[in-house]
């Protein structure tokens, strides 16, 4: 079921191929990027910027980046803590 929904999202042009997300780094810090599915984007935690994915194409021109609010980064930290506590 998970595989089917991932395939459907890829066909819809929002999911980036896993090997591509492994190859890509932040254009500014050159550090790893984290995939975010909703909204489809690549997050550079090193500099707190998110880069959109449009029609399956990652937009990694530096000026495409959007600075994340502290709220957005805190939500991610809380989600990570929750999943660690639940294990």
């Amino acid at each position, binding site marked *: 079921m998970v595989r089917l929904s991932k395939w459907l999202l890829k066909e819809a042009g929002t999911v980036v*191929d896993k*090997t*591509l997300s492994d*190859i*890509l*780094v*932040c*254009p*500014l810090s*050159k550090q790893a*990027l984290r995939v975010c599915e909703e909204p489809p984007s690549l997050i550079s935690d090193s500099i707190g910027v998110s880069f959109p994915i*449009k*029609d*399956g*194409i*990652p*937009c*990694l*021109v*530096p000026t*495409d980046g959007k600075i994340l609010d502290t709220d957005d980064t805190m939500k991610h930290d809380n989600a990570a803590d929750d999943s660690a506590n639940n294990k």
Partner: protein
Amino acid sequence: MHSLQFSVPLLPTSRFKRHSVRCASDRQQLFNRIAPVYDNLNDLLSLGQHRIWKRMAVSWSGAKTGDSLLDLCCGSGDLTFLMSEKAGADGKVIGLDFSKEQLSIASSRRYLLSKACYNNIEWVEGDALDLPFSNGYFDAITMGYGLRNVIDKRRAMQEMFRVLKPGSRVSILDFNKSMQPFTALFQEWMIDNVVVPTATVYGLAKEYQYLKTSIDEFLTGKELEKLALDAGFSYARHYEISGGLMGDLVAAR
């Protein structure tokens, strides 16, 4: 390719107002505007020869089966598709450009051409001056008619050097800024009397006027070799092709 019913007007050297295309975002918009007719115009203006030059550029890059390849300033994807054929199913090719419109066309072309090996291509919108790849990743890089258009050529060379594996090559195809007066004059005449009038038919006179300025501001073969060596490449050689109208810079890390 369109079959056009027009006769190329034999204009006296046109005095169009020079459009300054100075900053990166101007150039990005220019390439977005010409995207819909870019391929047709390339075919028309080079009488199909650009396909040969591009095959030569790919050959000089040393790209082979199974490689991880990068095509910079990929535009509508001509070089990317050639690199994809070299890499095969076990390889990977990234086509990178800063024009969304060109990438859209490249992406659509991939589906229309529907060759199985083209599944190894990924399109990325990015900046040649800040590449979103880690150090030493690629086995070969091509760049077709891109270096002349980047704002900071030195930085572009440094980024290419950074993302190349040691021992790998970059192959940069572009117009040649010739030191031979006859060649330079012929090139200028072609732009004034063939390229711009043809582009005018498509409503893109201003955009193709930019071509002349960009060649004027480009580097000669010797200067390009020095640029590559200064960026850290251990070997750099500029090959003139098509009677000196075009050139390919090959540099090895």
